[in-house]
């Protein structure tokens, strides 16, 4: 069922190793980094929005107290 005779055969890709693994490697890297960056951006955005919301609430409370 498995096409390859050995693991080194698999890595060599019939002499096309650099091209095949260069393609799969960069794709894997991008598909790992993109979600991480999206999650990080989400966290910083939420932190900023919460800060802004608290500041606005404080300003509002001050206005109503006066």
């Amino acid at each position, binding site marked *: 069922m498995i*096409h390859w005779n050995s693991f080194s055969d*698999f890595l060599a890709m*019939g*002499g096309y190793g650099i*091209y095949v693994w*260069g393609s799969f490697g960069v794709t894997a890297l991008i598909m790992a980094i*993109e979600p991480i960056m999206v999650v990080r951006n989400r966290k910083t955005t939420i932190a900023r*929005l919460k800060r*802004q919301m608290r500041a606005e609430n404080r300003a509002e409370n001050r206005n109503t107290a006066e």
Partner: protein
Amino acid sequence: MKDRFNLYRFASPATFYPLAGALIPYFAAVSVVFGLAGLYLGMLVAPTDFQQGEGYRIIFIHVPASWMSMFIYLVMAFWAAIGLAFNTRLSGMMAQALAPTGALMAFLSLWTGALWGKPMWGAWWVWDARLTSELILLFLYIGYMALTAAIDDARRADKAGGLLLLVGVVNIPIIYFSVKWWNTLHQGSSVNLTKSSMAETMLWGMLLMAMCFWMYSIAVAFMRVRTIMLERERHTDWVKAELAKIGTGGEQ
């Protein structure tokens, strides 16, 4: 009639936000399952190509990335048309959320294409119709992102970006049919509706990888659109309630 399921309800950010949040883990999980199955078939089971040896295995990411780069653009253009015609809030956010993923798919298509072209044609790059039009697609994505980022007012950014998307959509059929219309170095399509030039395991490996890329794109775009929604709708009550929930353990 009043309890009839109403699809238009999900066109509102306040209802789409929790729905997208609930769906993300499923799209991510399905993407991983399709990806593992596709890699197993494509990298371990599929036979050697009689012309291209083992080098052809780049197809298992080259074709899915290329398909997604074109499909995501079409979806963005669809949202742009809806946004310009009906002035809906969600459409601009959707286009905005899809653009970086589309650009990455276009980049991957060009990158894997270069790594495939070098051993097969002897050149990383040629100014052939297929390659050039795909490069223009990458520039369209980058242009859309730069244009919308340069305009402070989100609604005006959506309108300008939407116009760019609709003008640029003419490029998609050019990419798709370029190998038929012109005499190109790029090989013809490996799959069409009536017949396929590939072995069965190759074809299934490629289709599974395409499904993996598709589900991945939806999961990432949904994550991104949720952040855009919070940002853009920050003055609404539902976002304020949502922000109050986050950090107190109420958010998943």
